[in-house]
């Protein structure tokens, strides 16, 4: 019983530590911009024939979208497209995925979060597709 409790406490502390480490990372908006444009926009333009400029949504809308983590009307997750597995799967034909192949998933996601927040319709620097 006590052993179980100790394990739970340990797991909690480790989880808290990991969360605070992730939160401590501010995000690199320039790297986010590159990943957003060369992976997200490139795929949307090719597959859906419609780009996704950051300035089409407000900061709140982007935050809600990323928080919900539902991509393609909930058929899969947004985070899937930041995973190392996904990057590995496209890196032979996508230079951004290749260049950032070893970047931790949470950092890359944070980079893009910072970029779309900044580039949102009501962001500090509204950004189109170019």
């Amino acid at each position, binding site marked *: 019983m006590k052993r179980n409790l100790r394990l739970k406490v340990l797991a909690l502390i480790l989880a808290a530590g990991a969360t605070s480490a992730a939160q401590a990372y501010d995000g690199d908006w320039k790297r986010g911009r590159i990943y957003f444009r060369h992976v997200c926009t490139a795929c949307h333009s090719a597959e859906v024939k419609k780009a996704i400029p950051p300035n089409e949504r407000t900061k709140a809308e982007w935050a809600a979208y990323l928080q919900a983590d539902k991509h393609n009307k909930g058929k899969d997750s947004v985070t899937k497209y930041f995973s190392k597995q996904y990057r590995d799967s496209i890196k032979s034909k996508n230079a951004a995925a290749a260049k950032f192949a070893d970047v931790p998933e949470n950092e890359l996601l944070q980079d893009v979060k910072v970029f779309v927040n900044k580039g949102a319709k009501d962001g500090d*620097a509204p950004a189109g597709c170019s």
Partner: protein
Amino acid sequence: MRTGIFVVALLASMLLAPAVNAASEPVPAKLLKSTSDHTKFKALQQEFNSGPEVTKACLSCHTEAAKQLHQTEHWKWEYKNPQGQLLGKKTLINNFCISPASNEGACNSCHIGYGWKDDTFDFTSEVNVDCIVCHDTTGNYRKPAGLAGNVIAKTMEFPPGSGKIVKGINLKKIAQSVAKTSRDTCGACHFYGGGGDGVKHGDMDSSLAAPEKEVDVHMDALGLNFTCATCHMTKGHQVPGSRYAPTAQDKGAAHLRGKEYKTIPTTCQACHGQAPHKKIAKLNDHTDKVACQTCHIPAFARGGVPTKMSWDWSTAGKMGPDGKPLTIKDAKGHPIYMAIKGDFVLGEDVVPDYRWFNGTVTYTLRSDKVDKNNEPVQINRYEGSASDGKSLIWPVKIMRGKQPFDPVNKTLVVPHTAGNDDTAYWTNFNWDKAIAKGMATIGEPYSGKFDFISTESTWPITHMVAPAKNALRCRDCHASGGRLEKVPDIYIPGRGSDHARWLDTAGWAIAVLTLLGVLGHGLGRVILSKRNH
């Protein structure tokens, strides 16, 4: 109880672990690019209420920076060319927004200073130098048009009376994040010259902020990732490579580290040397007549941002059915008519014009006489010829315009366009008042009569270098109707205008006769062979 002790011990070990590790086994840290962490500087650990306050803090360490800046074209907006013409944004007229003069409040948001709203601006002030505009890394630094280069540090209604609330920028955070210049900082002005994204240059727009390789092989964000300063290598804040003093032909060697050179570092040759084509050496035979850019920049405005190819001010002033200033947009949403500016023609993936160019550019100044009998007026004229030994064939953007001039004094005029006052054209749509105010501001005579005159300006195409596989091929020029068809005074094999009909006929006749001879000979051999058997 024992669980509690365990938890405390665990927490303590987690907190202390890094320190113990640091002492026993150093953990490799991420290598910082800079030797300074600006968040640690006391001078920057304060709230700033204005740009000059930040500059004062910067200068407390970088003591000579403002003095260096004061000597630059970026600060003075003045440059005297070898012909003795006084150029620079301060005095020149163009055929985009025409002139910053009398419109300083709006245009001078792109000056590297704070507060240049009229001719009382103090060019000797050190704190008026804007360090952040070139060294920001946050991308949040803004100098809104209308504030004469000042920033909004506290949330306020802007423009006054508009009801629009603009959030103040966090100058402390921005100041603590400064670093070297980037494509974003240079681009904040140079991508938006002429009043909007990509408007002026054609080979510079926001697509260069994080471009793909196809748009610019050097700036490719996932490849070489050049910044502007990689080529425009700056010494003491002096930036080489101004279009006011262009280098048309660089016969110097590729620059090696440690050696001193008299040639500037911005040319292609400064890195690639004089014989850059290793696989097809024949191409090196072209470099004495053809600029690198001619073949390696097959088109401009290739990044998805259109550039303005013409601007007709004479049609400005139309109101829509609602009585408000009319705006018409194209299918992609880009304005092609604005009541405040007139009609535009936009271009994407534009094939350049080509000119002989020897590096000399002569400008039409405010005091020069212009005449409707000599339209279009050349706002600037690229000098050069096939025979001067200094010229190369260069790609250029030709900007065509129709702009106001004084038909009595026969001069181009400076209108006062931007502002909330009654004389600003964008407020009252009255050319008489706008021109009178503009000309009075610059101290030049105005007859009280105005008309519109056609103009052309020439812009060098030198950015947006394509990957080698997308460079021009032989047939792009060596063919009838090729790109260099109209370039005079040079023989280009295969070019339509260089064809001598008699020579072509004789050549083809020889070829046909040769073919007939070969076929006849072969046929004879076959027939004789059959007979012999």
